[in-house]
């Protein structure tokens, strides 16, 4: 079935030079394995085609139920060189959450998450 990343994760993004980082956090502990399995660097790279010009790296933080992505060459030069309205990649977290994932598992979406 198809699920929206927005429904199982939240995210925050920021800049590191011309790279951006996007932290993606599972809304519930049981969603984390889904992220690990389906939210691969390759899929993220394909999702950001045309917006992120460089490679995508992924790091796992199982203790926080989170993945951290580094999107290289994502900010049009970064810092004050970038002409982008979002020169610091602040909205790339929400761009990530646009993703839809085709998953084999049964639907697990619940209304409430662990705020």
């Amino acid at each position, binding site marked *: 079935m198809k699920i929206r990343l927005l429904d199982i994760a*939240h*995210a*925050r993004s*920021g*800049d*590191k*030079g011309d790279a951006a*980082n996007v*932290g993606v*956090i599972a*809304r519930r502990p049981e969603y984390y394995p889904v992220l690990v399995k389906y939210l691969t660097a390759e899929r993220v790279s394909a*999702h*950001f*085609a*045309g*917006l992120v010009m460089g490679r995508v790296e992924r*790091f*796992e*933080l*199982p*203790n*926080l*139920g*989170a993945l*951290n992505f*580094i999107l290289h060459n994502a900010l*049009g*030069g*970064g*810092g*004050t*060189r970038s*002409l*982008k*309205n*979002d020169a610091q990649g602040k*909205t790339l*977290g*929400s*761009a990530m*959450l*646009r993703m839809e994932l085709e998953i084999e598992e049964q639907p697990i979406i619940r209304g409430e*998450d*662990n*705020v």
Partner: protein
Amino acid sequence: MKERIRIASGQGFWGDLLTAPRDQVTRGEVDYLVMDYLAEVTMSILQKQRRKNPSLGYARDLVPLMEHLLPLLVKKNIRVITNGGGVNPLACRDAIFEAAGRLGISGLSIGVVLGDDILGRLGDLRAHGMTLNNMETGEDLASVMDRVMSANVYFGAAPIVEALNRGALIVITGRTTDTGLTLAPMMHEFGWREKEWDRLAAGTVAGHILECGGQASGGNFSADWHAVPDLAHIGFPIAEASPDGSVVITKHRGTGGLVSVQTVKEQLLYEIGNPVDYITPDCIADFTTIRLSADGPDRVRVSGVKGRSATETYKVSMSYLDGYAAAGTLTYAWPEALEKCRAADTILRTRLQDLGLRFDEIRTEFLGYNSCHGPLAPAPAEVNEVVLRIGVRGKDYAAVERFGKEIAPLILTGPPSVTGFAGGRPKPSQVIAYWPALLPKSAVQPDVIVETH
């Protein structure tokens, strides 16, 4: 030794909520107020200000803020640690001493940390084999050497700890890591030594949580922003630190915002790279060892943090002049707002070409449609209005300035139903590019001065 200290975040960046530091010291008990003012670009701006006036070059907001808070800080013995000294911590200190004098406060101890500014030493360092080449691209510093505007070593907590040990109520630094501002009081109060890596890492993680102010206590919260109460009166985060390295993140009772496991998680992931190697001058913190647990309303316990030995190098942050940029906007209204934007963009680009102006980059964005998510944003069926935003960047100041004169004419010589040119012609601004490098720690020594007046 105190069993617990409360460290309050007062500013997440230069330009942050001006009422936050006051609220942190008046709305509940705290022992320390820590304030981060320095982004990468900030140092070059401050260097420019100091060149024009040798008594400037620091975060000027600090002086009226300290003048406002000093009586309370002195009365309650709340200590302030800030990197707002910029490229001129001594001038910042003197301005605060003057403010204290106006208030009739005497016996005030202020510490400054100097030595991070290596702008005048670049040639000498390179002559001694320290290349300061770009640590990300490998480029030789020689390619930009004549355009370097600022060069600062990131010091860690150690020199701040020395100033605190020597009795400073206020510690003003130049380029210090954001995390060091929060770690330092823990080292000072609990006697943590170098090589107690787990504890240093725990204090560093607390510093990372505090360094962006309200972003840890409900600001910019993606999981459920509707659920954050009363952001108008957001309480900035406070770290309650214990000698064993465990920390509770909280905020003052009665303030707005939210401290939850989720708000803290979002801040932990902000602007990090490989989570196993969070490198500071003080230690390497392993973010995959952090344990978070709810500890009552607006309280999150942070524990389990593991650290490793610090590296042999300091990070150096340099900035250099890299040409000029300008951007202008116009707003187009329904019908066919997006189509009109596209047509105006084509007209403008044609005119720039006819003028023979050359730029390194011209970027067009349509605010309301694609300036944030670019090609990931689906084209809207019909929009009420779109803001056309065009920016240029290049080495030639005159060309960038000329571009600024081509926006307004579109109002009378382009597509209809256009407005939004109240701001005047866009002016060229300097492009300040960032040059990160590494320097052996042995090449530079922090200099700590504590004076009482």
